[in-house]
Structure formats: C-alpha cells, structure tokens
C-alpha cells in the first residue's frame, strides 16, 4: 500500500528504453517456415501425387497451404484469436503486394521497352514525315507529337483552369439556388467517360459546326474532363479558408470581388495550382477523345486551331499496332515519355502542394529550437491533442465519388 516516493539510489541502473513489439522475434521464422512447408507440401501432392500441374495452380495452392499451416502454427502457440489476426495481416499485406507488384512491373516493362528509342536525339528532333518501313532506327521521332501535346495541354489549362476556379468561387463564395444543381452536375461530369467527351466535341463542333479536326477540339474535350477535378479541389481548399479572413477584408471596406480575388484566392493559390497540375497529369495521357477530335498526323502541325494534330498518346496508340518493329519501338519510347511526363507533373504538384507546409515547418523550426515530437499526425487523440496538426487537404489524392451535399 505505501509507496516509495523516490527509488532507492542503489537500484539506479541505467535505463534501457524499449518499444514493446506486437510481433516476436521468432514470428518471422514461423512465417518463412510456413511458406516453405506450404510450397513443399503442394509440390509433393499437386505435382507428384495428383495428375495436375502448371505454375498457376502451384502458386495458388501453395499460398492457401501456407496460410493454413501458418494459421495452425500460430494457433497452437498464441491461440485462435492471434492466429486469425496474423493470417489477416498476411492476407492484407499480400493484397497490397497485389497492387504494388503489377504496377511496378508495368513501369519497368515500359522503361525497358522504351528507353532505347527515347534516348536517340531523333525522337525529339524529327517527325514521322519521312519514315518508311526501311528507315533506320535513329531516324524519325515524335517531335510533332510532343509539340501537339504541349500545345493541347496549354489550351486545356487555359480553358479549364479559369472556368474551374470561377465555378468553385461560385459554389463556395457566391452560392444561391443554383449551387446545388451545379455541384451535382460537376460530380456527374467527373464520371463522364473520356470517349463520351470526345464524341460530344465531335458531334457539336466538327459534325454540326463544321470545324476541322484540330488540337483545339481535343483541348476542349480534355478541358471537360479536367474541369470537375479543378472545381472540386479548389472548392475544397476554399472551404478551409477561415471565414474571418473574408470578413476582415470586407470590414476594411473592400468590395466583395476584391476580397475574393485579392484576399481569399491568393491564400489558396498553392492548392489551386496543385489541382491544375494534377489535372494536367491526368489529361496528358488521355487517348480516347483524341481519336475523334485531333485525329492524328505524322507530320508537324504547329497550328493547334486547324487541321489534324498529333500528340503523344495518339502517336503511341497509332504506332503500337504497326507491323514495322521500328515504329513499335518508337511507340514504346512515346509511352515512356508519357510516363516521365506524368511523373514530372505529379512530382511538381506534390512540390507545389507541399510548399506552404514546408514554409510552415521552417517557421516552426526557427521559433522552437527543440525538435518537435515525431509525427503526431495520427497519434491517438487522447494523448496528442496538443500536438494535433492543423487540418490540411491532401490535394494529390484521387477524386471522390460524387455525393450530393
């Protein structure tokens, strides 16, 4: 009952901080052992005893046998509950591997196929104008497609960014009876398949109004695909702007339009720019709508407003089915270039999106020399209330499914 208020100094051995582990040291062994015995068992039974064979069945059955063996081993040492927990941990982890492995494979595959032709200068300096089946490897390239992609991307942003931001301002700052249907329709728009956007532009501009195929037509289709994500992300960051900021601007006598354009929007600039760049990353690889809008061309067309124009996705799509292996190699180089472009845009988006947080961290570091406790972002609420970070939106995430507000 009575408690020593201070520990006897004789007991003062140096302390060794430990982090209790949910998983013991021998658990890894159990895991590996179960996997090995599962595979052996299946090999004997499946390949030798039963008249079955083939790698698919072998791996499938091995996995099942592994889970069963692992489960029974853990069950005998730690009980049924722990066994289910461990088995589910393995299943969840394999599920994540099921996501990561093929996608890594895809990127590596495209890299290995495309790097050869991509590093040739011709890829950037020549078009397909004079390329025939007998043309050597280092002739012919995607210059016209690169130009087309850049021009179309620029036009897409020029159309969708102002419109998207203005729509978000309307939804969040102006509002009114129209806001609800607009929000619903913006959500619906984000679900429109890209091919439908292409068909729409084709039907309206080319078939009805008599435009020619052009890069600009493609840009309009792409802008339609990009608009909802710009609108929604902008709206989301606008919602995080504290109301006091608007009111203090209005209280100074600023007219509403100045308060919005010069006070509110600048605070969310990083968020909007991130949203736009991410929209570009998604738009740049869209292929389907190009088929009926910009069509395709194997020669340079500098003018995006008139005549068929190539771009990287359509270049790849049209070349990859070619019977000439040289063209197929050029197609893979185009595919790799697309991946690099997407990766670059994505990195840029994360960098821009992270800029305010970086500034904030630097500011904190200057103010408080003591190191902040290790990321408490998701620490249990009961102990980390003081360390809880301000809410931020991860702008690089994929769009939500729509939801009426």
């Amino acid at each position: 009952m009575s408690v020593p208020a201070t520990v006897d100094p004789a007991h003062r051995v140096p302390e060794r901080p430990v982090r209790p582990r949910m998983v013991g040291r021998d658990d890894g062994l159990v895991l590996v052992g179960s996997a090995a015995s599962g595979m052996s068992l299946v090999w004997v039974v499946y390949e030798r005893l039963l008249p079955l064979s083939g790698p698919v069945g072998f791996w499938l059955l091995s996995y099942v046998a592994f889970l069963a063996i692992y489960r029974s081993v853990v069950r005998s040492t730690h009980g049924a509950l722990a066994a289910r927990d461990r088995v589910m941990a393995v299943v969840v982890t394999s599920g994540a591997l099921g996501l990561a492995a093929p996608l890594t494979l895809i990127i590596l595959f495209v890299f290995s196929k495309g790097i050869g032709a991509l590093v040739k200068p011709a890829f950037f300096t020549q078009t397909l104008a004079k390329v025939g089946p007998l043309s050597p490897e280092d002739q012919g390239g995607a210059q016209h497609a690169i130009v087309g992609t850049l021009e179309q991307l620029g036009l897409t942003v020029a159309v969708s960014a102002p419109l998207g931001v203005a729509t978000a301002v309307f939804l969040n700052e102006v509002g009114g009876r129209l806001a609800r249907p607009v929000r619903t329709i913006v959500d619906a728009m984000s679900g429109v398949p890209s091919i439908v956007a292409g068909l729409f532009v084709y039907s309206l501009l080319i078939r009805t109004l008599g435009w020619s195929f052009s890069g600009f037509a493609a840009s309009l289709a792409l802008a339609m695909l990009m608009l909802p994500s710009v609108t929604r992300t902008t709206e989301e960051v606008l919602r995080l702007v504290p109301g006091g900021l608007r009111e203090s601007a209005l209280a100074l006598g600023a007219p509403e339009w100045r308060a919005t354009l010069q006070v509110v929007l600048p605070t969310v600039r990083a968020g909007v720019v991130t949203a736009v760049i991410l929209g570009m990353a998604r738009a740049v690889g869209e292929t389907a709508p190009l088929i009926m809008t910009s069509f395709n061309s194997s020669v340079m067309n500098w003018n995006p407003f008139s005549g068929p124009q190539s771009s990287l996705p359509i270049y790849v799509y049209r070349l990859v089915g070619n019977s000439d292996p040289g063209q197929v190699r050029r197609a893979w180089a185009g595919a790799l270039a697309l991946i690099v472009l997407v990766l670059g845009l994505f990195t840029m988006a994360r960098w821009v999106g992270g800029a305010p947080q970086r500034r904030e961290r630097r500011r904190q570091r200057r103010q408080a020399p003591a190191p902040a406790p290790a990321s408490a972002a998701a620490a249990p609420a009961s102990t980390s209330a003081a360390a809880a970070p301000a809410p931020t939106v991860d702008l690089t995430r994929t769009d939500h499914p729509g939801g009426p507000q």
Partner: protein
Amino acid sequence: MAATDFDVPVGLSGDDIPLSVAVNRSPADRRFRLAARASGASTLVVMGLVAVFLAKGAWPALRIAGARFFTRTEWNPDAANGSFGIAAIVWWTVMIALIALLLAVPLAVASALFINEYAPRRLRRALTALVDLLAAIPSLIYGLWGRAFAGDALAGVARWLSRNAGFVPMFDVRGDAYDSSTFVAGVIVALMVLPIATSVMREVFAQTPVAEKEGALALGATRWGMVRAVVLPFGRGGIIGGSMLALGRALGETIAIALIISPKYVVDARVLERGSNSVGALIALKFGEAGSTGLSALLALGLALFAITLVVNFAASFVVARSRSGAGVEA
C-alpha cells in the same frame, strides 16, 4: 416587406417585424457575382449540350434500328440493310467491369488497410503518394502492357482455369484461343482502377475516429478485430464509393480495352475465350472506318454509355451520402 414602415413604434407593436437589411451591391460586385454564376451555369449548359448533341447525332441510327437497338447483338450499321444493336456490346462491357471489380475491390480494401493500419508509419506517406501517382498513369499504358506482356501470362492462367474448372460455364472455352478475352481485359482494367479505388478507400479509412479504434483495442481486440469492428464499418461508405467510382471508370474505359480485345458479337458466358467487346473500345475501333449510319450508330453507343455512367454516378452519390463516413467526407 414592411421593413421601411418606421411608423410602427419598435418594441411597442404586438409582433416584431424583422428588418431585412437590403444588400446594396456595387456594380462591380454585381458583375463579379454574375461572372461567377455564369461559370457555374456553364457546367449545366455543357452537360445539357452533351445529352442534346449525342442524341442529335444518334437520332438517324436510332430511327433505323428502333427498339431492336437494345436487343440486337450484331453490329453492321453500314451494310446495305444493316442491322445493329447494343445487346452484346453492353453485355461484355458489363462483364469486363464486373471481373475488374471482383478483383480490384478486395485488393483495394486490402491495400487501403495496409497503408493505414499495417504499413510502418514511415512508409505511410510515401505509399499514399505512390498510389495517387499510379492512379494518374494513363490507361493507354495499362493497355500497352496488357497487349505486349500480361496478355500471354493471363492466357496461361485462363488455360489452367478452363482445363481444371471447365465444367463451370464461365470457364468453358471452345478451341484453344485464350488471348484477347474478356478475362484479360477485366484483369487489366482491374489493375487500372485499383489505385483509384484504393485512394478513395484509404482516405475514408483514415478518418476513422481514433477514439473508437482505441476503444476496441483497449477491450483486448487484435488489430484485425479492431479493423473489423471499427474501421470497416466506418469505412463502408468509402468502400462503396470507391467501388462505384471504379465501376464507372471500368464501364467507360476505352483505350486499354481497345488495345487488348478482338470484338465479338454474341452473348454468352465464356469470359476466358478469345473475343470480347466494350462500348468505349468499339467506338474507338470503329470510328475511323464508319460510314454515315455507322457514325450515327457510334454516337448512339456513346449516348448509351453516357446514360449508364450517369446512373452509376448518381447511385454512388446516393449510397455514399447515406453512409456514416460518406457524410463526413462531403460535409
């Protein structure tokens, strides 16, 4: 309405008359509001125009085909007395999407859980960024990979399935061609929608109240017990929402499927056999060679796809808004 009637002595009248403060906006502010409202309205107009112009373009073909447009399986709009209908095309579109969801949803749930609850904390941010990056990889790339690499491997799986489980009608294959099939397309589309679905689910799972998770753990729950009792019920809206988003993408997917399948126009259950179809892919494949009726028929296909995805989208909104986490996400 009597806001300016100052004859009523304030405080003495029987019923208080609320003074409505008339907002007197400057012309500049009014122009600003008008511009914002016009931008908002433009989305309504654009979506309206989509419906109108698809319908306008589709009308000639729909008039020729009549109600059989929905029941016919063949696709010969440009033949002399051509007959065409969307039955087979829509059937296979749905089959591809279902196979994709069947594979992608469990993997997406597992991946989302892995990132939030199982992965070492240091990796969490990196994995999240990786998933979002993968969601931005163009479907064209998935299609190329499926055509040049995965198709063969998946044909091996299909062969094994049909040899060992061919008695199931779905796994039956006549002849020995396992490539360019519904199954292969479904798997590739599954990979394509996987990061998208994972991203949505992960984000909703991450909003599970920590107090509830700790409550479960404090009762002696294992990690999996906690996930089942707290995270999954809370994240149900995210699972449904992510799945519906994936479904919408899968139904509308064009290029990846166009690069993989070879079109077939019969309705049966043989998903492992060569040949499949999809609304988007068929539009992409036939656009270049279509005559005038053919073009109109393709626009009719586009109209059908537009209608289908709208239905899926609204269904998703409805379900997500009614779930607990869904309300939190969109609030």
